[in-house]
Structure formats: structure tokens, C-alpha cells
């Protein structure tokens, strides 16, 4: 039950959506791009989110894209996570998405909403960080294409009326060996304690992590540590752990020390799996 009221709009084009956004802003209202809407609905109920004007994006064609375009995979921001999984255009993403929330909720939660959302985890972003995908963003100023490494810094940096339309990923990333591990406080359900996604590229392992810090990230320092050839595995893990870019969370899911312990083991396993070697 959402205790506040808002106006509801269902634009059919990006232009229309942007225009509504600007008009609402001009009227001093708080507009909300509404994709899956689960964040507004769940946090709104407990007074942690608010909006005066909801702009439901799901009737706009571009945000529903789900296709291969030459060498690229094009995924619209308003695809439900289950739609992304079923299309299976990017197997690592399929796996990552399939571990978020639960199946029924994923019929509603969308790719863009998850990535742009406010909670710590935003796990769906991990594969895009690894593949350094391109975010297609529109605003009144036009369309811009930005690398994820640039536009996702702790969060998806969008300003004013900027709207995430699509994520474009080079196909070569979709065929690389990958590992995805989501570890929870206990058993099979719930938020992550740590989620690690990794790809084996020509230049070594790429890793991105969610649940460890207050935001998902890919860290060059961590990767350098992991990939420092000629060093023992324990040393590599240690260097990787030293590369964690921010404070490690201590919360209801687990303490910082325990998260570090779990991450260490996950990294050991993934190195062994991706390098095919035996870890000693």
C-alpha cells in the first residue's frame, strides 16, 4: 500500500517520456522513470521512496529491444529479468539474472531498474561491467553512448532527465568462459553475502563483485592482483583482496570479516576453474 499519490503516464516514445519528465520537473514535481516499478512500490510503502509523477516506460519500443545486431547484443532497459534469461543472448547475464530475487519477482523486475536501483546489490550490472558494455542514454540533448566503465561509478550516473535505453555488448564476450557465484548468509534464497561474476578474457580474468561493498564494482587493482602471473595463488588472492575499493559491509547478511573469508574462497575457486589448474 503506497500512502502517497502520483500521476501516472504511459508514453509511447522516448521523446514523450523525456518531455513529461521535464514538464513535471518544471512544475516542481518529482518524476520517476518506472520500469519494473518494484523499487517504488516496495520502498514507497515504507516511506523510503517517493514520486509525484510516474512515467511508465514499458510501452516504448526501444526499451524493449532484445536482439543480436551484427556483432552486438542489444538489450532494452525495460526487459524483465526473466525475458533476458529466456533470450539467453549473454549466458553469463542469464546466470546472474537467474539468481536475483525469485522467479516470479523477476517477471517484474527489469534490467534497467535493477542497474539503476537504489539498493546495494544491483547484481544485474556485473556482466555489463565485465564486458564494458555500452549504455545508450537519451536526454533532451540527444542520444549518448557511454562505456559502463565510465558511466557506472558506484551507481549508474544519470543526470536530470537522462534515461537508460539499452545496453549494447560486443558478442565476443558472450562466448567466453565465465563463472558466477552468489553466496548468501545461508542456503539458496535471499540477498547476496557476496556475488562474484568473472570472465576469462585474452588478458586474464575479469571480476566484478556485488554485496561486498555498498555498491557493485569491477576493480582493476583486484584483477591485476588475481592475474599477476608467476606468483603463488595465495599471494594473488591476497593482492586481489587488497584491491577492494571501499569499506566492506557488515550487516544482517554477515560481518565484514566473514565476507572477506567467503570472497577469498570464491576467488580461489574461480581462478582454479577459469585457469583450469589445480589450486594448492
Amino acid at each position, binding site marked *: *500500500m503506497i*500512502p*502517497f499519490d502520483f500521476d501516472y503516464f504511459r508514453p509511447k516514445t522516448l521523446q514523450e517520456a523525456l518531455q513529461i519528465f521535464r514538464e513535471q520537473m518544471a512544475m516542481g514535481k518529482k518524476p520517476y522513470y518506472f520500469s519494473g516499478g518494484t523499487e517504488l512500490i516496495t520502498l514507497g*510503502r*515504507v*516511506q523510503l521512496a517517493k514520486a509525484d509523477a510516474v512515467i511508465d516506460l514499458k510501452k516504448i519500443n526501444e526499451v524493449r529491444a532484445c536482439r543480436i545486431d551484427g556483432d552486438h547484443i542489444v538489450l532494452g532497459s525495460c526487459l524483465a529479468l526473466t525475458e533476458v534469461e529466456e533470450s539467453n543472448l549473454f549466458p553469463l547475464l542469464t546466470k546472474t539474472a537467474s539468481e536475483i530475487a525469485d522467479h516470479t519477482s523477476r517477471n517484474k523486475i527489469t534490467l534497467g531498474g535493477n542497474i539503476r536501483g537504489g539498493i546495494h546489490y544491483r547484481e544485474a550490472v556485473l556482466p555489463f561491467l565485465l564486458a564494458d558494455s555500452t549504455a545508450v542514454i537519451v536526454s533532451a540533448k540527444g542520444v549518448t553512448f557511454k562505456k559502463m566503465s565510465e558511466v557506472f561509478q558506484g551507481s549508474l550516473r544519470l543526470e536530470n532527465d537522462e534515461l537508460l535505453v539499452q545496453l549494447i555488448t560486443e558478442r565476443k564476450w558472450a562466448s567466453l568462459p565465465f563463472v558466477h557465484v552468489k*553466496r548468501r*548468509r*545461508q*542456503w*539458496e*534464497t*535471499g*540477498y547476496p553475502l557476496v556475488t562474484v561474476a568473472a570472465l576469462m578474457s585474452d588478458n586474464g580474468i575479469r571480476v566484478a563483485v556485488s554485496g561486498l561493498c555498498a555498491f557493485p564494482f569491477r576493480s582493476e587493482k583486484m584483477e591485476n592482483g588475481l592475474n599477476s602471473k608467476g606468483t603463488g595463488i595465495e599471494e594473488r588472492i591476497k593482492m586481489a583482496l587488497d584491491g577492494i575499493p571501499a569499506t566492506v559491509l557488515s*550487516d*544482517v*547478511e*554477515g*560481518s565484514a570479516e*566473514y565476507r572477506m*573469508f*567467503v570472497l577469498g*574462497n570464491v576467488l580461489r575457486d574461480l581462478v582454479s576453474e577459469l585457469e583450469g589448474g589445480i589450486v594448492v
Partner: protein
Amino acid sequence: MRTVGSSVVRKEAWQKVTGTAKYTDDYAFAGLLHAKMVVSTMAHAIITSIDTTEAEKIPGVRAVLLGGSYPLVGEAIRDRPPIAVGKVRYHGEPVALVVADSPVLAKKAANSIQVLYEPLPVVNSATQAFEAGATLVHEKLGEYKRDNEIHPPIPGTNIASHVKIRKGDMEKGWQECDSVVEASVSLSISDHAAMETRCSIAEIGPDGKIKITTSSQAPFMVKRLISQYFGEDMGKIVVETPLVGGAFGGKAAVQLEILVYLASKAVGGRPVKLRNEREEDILTSPCHIGLDATVKLGSDRHGKIKAANIRFLWDGGAYSDKAVDLTRAGAADCTGPYAIDNVWCDSYCMYTNHPYASPFRGFSHSELSFAIERTMDLLAEKVGMDPLTFRKINAIMPGNTTPTRVLLNNSNVGNLPKCIERVHELIQWDEGEMIALDERFVRAKGISCSWKTSTIDPDAPSGVILTFNPDGTINLMSGVIEIGTGTKTVLAQLLAERLNMDVNNIYVKMDVDTQTTPEHWKTVASRGTFMAGKAVLQAAEDVIRQLKAIASCVLRAPIEDLDVADSRVFFRDDPGNGVHFKEIAYGYQYPNGNSIGGQIIGHGHYILRGLTHMNPETGEGRPGPEWTVTAHGIEVLFDRRDCTYKVLKAITVVDIGKVLNDKAARGQVMGAMSLGLSFAGRETFVFDSLGRVRNPQLRTYRPLHYSEAPEYMVEFVETPQIDAPYGARGVGEHGLLGIPAALANALSTAAGVSLQKLPLVPEMIWKAKEHVRP
């Protein structure tokens, strides 16, 4: 026998699969107002101000209630203001209540109320509450009215009640011991998390009639308490309870009913509904009690336990309500199902700044079993005995006495050795307690035993009324609430069995209302089948007598020559010759129009016999009628590196006396096991240092899900309880009792370190292992 023992489909099954089954919140009607609580954001604080100005300005807001003008409430001790006055004592405590035209308006208004607090030092655990010089949760403990004179609160402390067991000669006992172990275990507060959150509706008529509809296990208690607390005439209070969406003890406490009664009163008696959102259901409404325990056990060199010294510090939370009874129940069965001659137990009900407790399935027994069974494994190890054999030789048997010195016989206790033997086979104990699969992974097993009697009020009543329909079918009315246990279907089975008729010709009234349904004390403590079952059998005798009386006129035969079956009364020696119920249940009409007899109404009742209060100094007394015993086994697949695990198998063997409905009984036991695994493995309130609960949502407070369930094995031993309907023992709770302990035992074996805390999350195991690492 035709019906007893078979898996009769529950009477309300088709309602439940078509969405037509109605629960309290499903009732709505024009004119219904909605209430919303404002709850405390602090665990212990002075309320410095409450500003309701904004709320009162909102059109459609009909009343804003603050604490101050209401009497204190609480079952054992009247220590709780329905709405906080001056200070708050737990995170989630109601501080204001808004009544408005719609749920949205009520919520808007509640959100607009500003409350300011000045924090006080927080009592954040039962152990901390017990320490000398601890902050007091209740400064005026001595001044409260109370019912409990036997184990009264101790003013100037945080002790709401102290129950003592003094059995045998401790000095002698310890002298006889060769091996002694002592262990401290603890489990933090958690929640029932029934899928239906609590909900109540109240309305007061111009004649003063108070109608309350509520999702409760205890509508008759609601009636009594509202009358006692507020001086209302009992006859004017009618409490209705439709189907209840799970309860597990959490709906045995009376809380929302009081608030919604006050709310209705504040708006001139108009109907008001108050439904908990999940966060309120977790925080504000009573929860599952916590425990800090110390257990010292000693045995002689043959492994016979000679002495036990036990201290329970129950975390009853900010208000004592039912925690006092839980403290007593824990003391009464403190040793678990073992024959021990020398027992000393101190069971303390502690006040803390945590949400307060209500009963939880098992009523203190799964908690005490965790403490005892961990210590049992430690002692077995010290004695150098196999834990299963160790339990078997100490198993309690007819001829032994309980901690409260009840002499057990063949009827009032089940056969524990037999339960242990079955677990022995089912878990393939002889294969080994631990089997290493490789460097990392092991399969490990743990076992446990438990028992339970139901320490309910000695004068708790249960009644049943039977009426007939003109076609000869029967209506059964009992005050048992259908909370999911299927008890009402079992009652129909008992009746069908006794009358030797088709159970499909018996209709059960599912909803209860305290004006027309005979009272059943509370639907708790696995007592529904026993007490209401006895009442059903008595009512069956009553209708048989009446049916035969009129049939004997019609058939012109002495009563002794008649028998009843298949909805007919007939000649014993000539079954084809008789009358159908439909011809006589509403009187019999002769061909000329003369009529005799009249509508047949049967009734039966039951009250437990021979229960006594416990002696305040020694604990001696008969707290309950019968002890159901269980043995459990759990097998886990454990990762020694990551400290993660999967529960592979969970086994419960329970001496059920007699299986009345096979699938339903299995369902009850499995469901209870699932609840046990869930709270043992994951569930707990996570408190911060200020006593606030950090996980009041099902997103972060996560009950067991489908993919997390293990393989279940449930078996029954049948040692009849002679005075029970067809010998059946209570079984609603027992699947749960030893499960946390068995899991802890399996994991302790697997991890190679004694695990003495719940929940058994990998992080806790990891920490325990780190702790012992040299």
C-alpha cells in the same frame, strides 16, 4: 474401524484451493474504518513529545489515540500499557493509533505523527538483564497487579518470574558422577512468521455489545481478557474467528484485539479494522522467545546420568505476558526425556528491551532440548560412549519420575527407546556418524530426543455440540480454531468412527464465535484432538442415547437390543430392520400424525483431570496430562572449508499413541520439522547495539523456502494413551522439538567444534572454528 487412521481430506479443502476460504482480513463492509499504529523506533527511551497536529488535520481521520488513559494489561502480570505511556520498552511498541476512513488515509496520518525520544540504556540480552546492577526495564515491578502468586516477579530486578525445580539430593548425585560437563547455549529471539499477519476488527453496538473478529488461537481468552481488563460484561462480548492463516503460538497472545476495541470505542463504536503489515507483525506483535542456558550434567562410569543442574534465562522481552508460562513449562520438563534422580533447575523469566514473547510451537521445549541435547552429546563424548546408546540407557520410562516428580506409567509416557531404535535404523547410524567424502566435504549425522507435556491451565475446558439436519446428517460444533492443523476434520473422523457412519455425512462448523460455539480453551499445545476429541466422544454417546431412546419407541424394542451404524438405528440381531436418523432426529411422526421426541441436540465436554500447580520451592506437581516422546536424526553435507552445508535428511520418530489421520499427521510433523530447521538454521532477529531489530521483513528474515527443504522421514510408534480418544497423543508440535538440537549435533560433529548458538548459519560455524584454531 473405518475412518480413524485413514487420510480423510480436510473438510475445508476445496475452500482453500479456490480462494473462497475466508480469513479475518477478507471481511470488509461499507462503513468499516481502518486503524494504523505508530510504533517505536527505539528499544528503550523516554517519549519526550508526540505531535499529532498534522494527522488530525487530514480529512477522513476519525481519531488519534495515545497512551495514558487505559489500564495496564498482560496475562500473568499487568505490566503492559496497550499504547506506550511516557516511555517505550521495545522497538516496535505501539505509541499511537490512528483511525481513518481508509487504510491509505490511516497510514498517511500515522506517518505524519512526529514522536521524539530520549534514549535510555538498553537491556539487550537475558544474560545482561540478569547481571547485578542491570538497567531496569520496569522500575515499578512490585506495584503491578498479577495473577501469578506462585512464582511472583522480584522487584528491583529484571526477573518477572523464577521457577525452581529441586528434586533428589544434589550432593549425593554429584558424588556419584565420574564425568561432568557444563555447557552454555543460547538462542536469540525470532518470529513465528505465520503467512497471515494478525488482524482484528471490533465494533461496539448501541446496546454495548462488543463484536470482535480476529485471527486468533484464543477467541475465548479474548473475551475473558477484554472483560477483565476493561470491566465489560462478558456476555456482551462476542468474539468471532474465521479460518486462521497459520499461528504457531503467535496468535495465542491477545494484543490487536485490545487496540482495536479501544479504537472502536474512540469512534463511538463504529467498526474498525487493524491489520498488521509484515514489519509490525514481526516487531510489534509478540515473537518467539529467546534463551540463554547453562546446563551441567554428570554421569557415572556406566553412562548413567546422576545429576543435572540447569539454569534457564528466558528472554521474555519487554512485557511478561505469556513468557511467565513459558518459563514454567521449560522448568517442568527441563531435563529432556531422561531419567535423572537429582535435578536442580532455576528457570528465570527475564525482562529485556526486546519485543515480547508469546508461545511458539513446542512451548519452550525445542529451546530447552537444544540446551540439553548439546550437553548430552558433550557428556557422551566425555564418557566415551556412542551418543545414541547414551541416550537409550538414560531414556525415561514408565516407573521413572519427571523433574516435577510425576510418576510415569505405560499410558502417560510414550516409548522412547523404540523411537531411538527406529532413528538408529533410518539414519543408518551404524554406517558411522561422519563420513568424509573428500578433503573438503563430509556427511555427518546428529541425533536428539525430546518430550513434551502440555502445561495448560488445570481447569481448561473443551466442549462440543452436535445437531442434526433433517436429512439425518450431523453438524459438529467445537471451539477449536482451524489454524491449519486439520483438527476439525479429525474431530469429524472421531465422530464418524464412534457412530460408525460415513464421515461425509458430518458437517463441521469451521468458524468459531464465542456466543454460539462451545468453548475450547485455546487452540494450542497439541491439545485440540485430545480435549475436543474427548468431548466429541461424550457428545456421540449423548446422541446415541437419545437416538436409541426414540428408536426404541418406534421399533417397540428395548434399548439394549439396538445398535447404531450408517446413520441408522437398528436391531442388533436383524440389522435390516431399523430407522434412519432422518426419521427420528427431528422427532418421529406416526402415520396418523402423532409425533414423539424432538430435535436431537448432543453435547459433550471435557476438562483435564488431576493437574496441580507446581510447588514454589520444589517444583513438585503435575503440570500436564501426558508426555509425548520423540527421537530425531539429521544428516548434513558439510563443506569443511567454507563452513556451508546442506541438510540432506531430517528424521522424526514420534510416539503418537494412535494415528488418526495418516497424511494429516505426517503433514503436521513435517511442517513442524520444517519450522524447526528454519529457525535452527537461519531465523533470528538481528539486534543492533541499541536493541533495534535490523531485519523486520521477509526479505531479510527468511523462512525456509521450497528448494531448501531436505528429504523428510517421518515414522510413528503407537503406544496408546489409555484415556485418550482411540489412544492418540498430541502431535502438533513434536516434529519440531529436537530438530534444532539434532542439526546442531550433526554440525558440531561435522565441524569438529561444539556449536552452542542458534541460528546455525555458516558464519557462526566459521567463527566457532576460528575461535578454537590454535
